[in-house]
């Protein structure tokens, strides 16, 4: 790093700071890996260097030390998926105050003044899309269940909220509410089989992330109700796409992480090089079913670049 007071503008040596850091919400999720791939590709194209530092879990207390640690290395810009829309404000502001450009990717904080650009997909919209897709799959009747991860996880809570809002518009669908799984597939499977016992008319399940989706698929399979009870998952990691292909899952709500990463780098570079950045960019969210999966294959997440 080149240190110094005014970083990123590169006036001193005329050389802009070509180091970018991406701080995803959690390490090792295909969603963020795809984002990383998009970002890395774009950074390479523009002649920049991108490193990644991710917390172990999707938690503000885990992400904060990473942000301050990254700040100490003084990169030109930070792309971050804040894990909490309030708790991350302060560390992110410290980054900004140190003269480092901040770009929010995927999620945002409530303080709009920190980042030069926000590139996000709306999880609540995703939840609504899931409700509509699931309603269609079950012929708009029967009981449906939401499997959430841990209470207080902003992204999955938003998905569940969107789903709940939209599903209530269908008069013949009974909404059984959401159950929390602590992000453990085993717990998800346990809940699904329990709900099958208690509600034989269970028609559909919306699983808000990868682990709940895998657990739900297993629970249904175990009960021999795969395909009969419709399952909508979130994200299109290779495993989930595989399940979609083999019928374990009936639909997926996918975001476009690669584009988020790509756009994020573009905006960060723009800011570093003194060009105006686009303050707000919304990216696509799509529902993928088995029928149209080939058409939508560009949305499938990647596991390596």
């Amino acid at each position, binding site marked *: 790093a080149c240190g110094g007071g005014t970083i990123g503008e590169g006036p001193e040596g005329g050389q802009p700071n070509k180091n970018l850091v991406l701080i995803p919400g959690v390490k*090792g999720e295909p969603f963020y890996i795809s984002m990383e791939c998009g970002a890395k590709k774009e950074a390479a194209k523009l002649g920049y260097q991108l490193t990644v530092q991710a917390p172990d879990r999707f938690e503000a207390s885990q992400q904060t030390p990473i942000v301050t640690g990254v700040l100490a290395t003084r990169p030109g810009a930070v792309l971050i998926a804040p894990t909490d829309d309030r708790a991350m404000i302060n560390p992110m502001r410290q980054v900004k105050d140190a003269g480092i450009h901040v770009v929010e990717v995927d999620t945002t904080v409530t303080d709009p003044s920190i980042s030069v650009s926000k590139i996000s997909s709306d999880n609540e919209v995703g939840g609504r899309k899931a409700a509509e897709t699931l309603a269609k799959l079950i012929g708009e009747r029967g009981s449906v269940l939401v499997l959430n991860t841990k209470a207080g996880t902003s992204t999955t809570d938003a998905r569940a909220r969107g789903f709940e809002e939209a599903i209530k518009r269908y008069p013949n669908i009974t909404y*059984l509410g*959401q159950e929390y799984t602590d992000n453990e597939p085993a717990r998800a499977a*346990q809940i699904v*089989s329990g709900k099958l016992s208690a509600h034989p008319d269970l028609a559909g399940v919306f699983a808000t992330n990868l682990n709940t989706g895998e*657990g739900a698929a297993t629970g249904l399979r175990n009960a021999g109700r795969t395909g009969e009870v419709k399952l909508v998952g979130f994200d299109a990691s*290779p495993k989930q796409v595989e399940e979609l292909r083999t019928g374990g899952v009936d639909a997926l709500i996918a975001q476009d992480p690669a584009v988020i990463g790509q756009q994020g780098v573009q905006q960060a570079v723009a800011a570093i090089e003194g060009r105006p950045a686009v303050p707000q960019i919304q990216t696509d969210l799509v529902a993928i079913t088995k029928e149209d999966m080939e058409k939508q294959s560009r949305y499938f997440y990647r*596991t*390596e670049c």
Partner: protein
Amino acid sequence: MTEERTGKAVAPASTVDNNVDRMLPQRTLWQRLVTANTFWTGLVLIGLYVVFSVLRPNAFPTLFNFQTLLIEASVLLVLAVGMTFVIITAGIDLSVGSVLVFSGVVAAMVMEGLHGGDATHAGWGTILLGFVLSLAAGAAWGLLNGVLVAVARVPPLIVTLGSFGAALGAAQLLTGGVDVRTVPTALRNTIGFGQTMQIPHLVVVAAVVTLFAAWLLHTTRFGRYTYAIGSNAEAARRAGIAVTRHLVMVYGFVGLLAGLAGFMNLAYFGTTTISGHATDNLNAIAATVLGGTSLFGGVGSVLGTVIGVFIPAVLQKGFVILGVQPFWQPIAVSIVLVAAVWFDQTRRRARERGR
């Protein structure tokens, strides 16, 4: 005080009143049952089952529900059985969940690698190799734990907290953090979801492991040494027991079982579920302690652990079926857990007081 008289001999009573016969009589089965540490916890389990059955006669006491209860507890049971051994040696193993993930990842990646990136249609040769590798990977972590605990004498909590982080990190490093996505269909259909006469195969595996572990712990020299070391490691050493080697073996055995659990998990979920085992360790420890095994070592039983695994499982299942509000569920589970152990302790103390 009354005037004392010098005593006079009244009877030539034998000076030794113990004899072999008096010492030998075995207690009756019923006596042994009631004084068994697991009796009262077992009653709690049965009580819970009955209560839920009465509350939801159509949904709870069904064959399907019984089967899924067993299946869903299988993986945890295998972990908890291993945990029982370590805790009896006065140790602990926080790494089981991560070792499970690591073993599953190793097996899945090798199976995938052998079939050019898609193991879905792999045959039994591949599956067997995956199985062996899974066990080996688990045992390797376990032995590493054991060496650090017994030879380097680092406290087990620190050692296994270390491998808890390191095994998960290694699994993520191998996979890039992404679940391996293809698992042989043959494996899933036989071990994962197969049944024979309504008995799920996954349950058979867990039952065989449990019976073997019970046999090992309660009837063999290996088991006896496990108790002796937990009871007084120095005494065990002085009695000529190779304490270091035995501890390494115990941790290795737990690792092996975690490896097996990883393979079962793979067969069941059809994926490695990398991020889904953060609390397996606490669940297994809770089951073990709930089953009457003392964290200070020397005391415990496999049967107790089985009961300890099923009490929370029955509770959670029952609450889902009853439709208890989600946030109430952990509260209720916690209350019942503490109450069950409290009840058990009270009974034991009363028994010791002879009432």
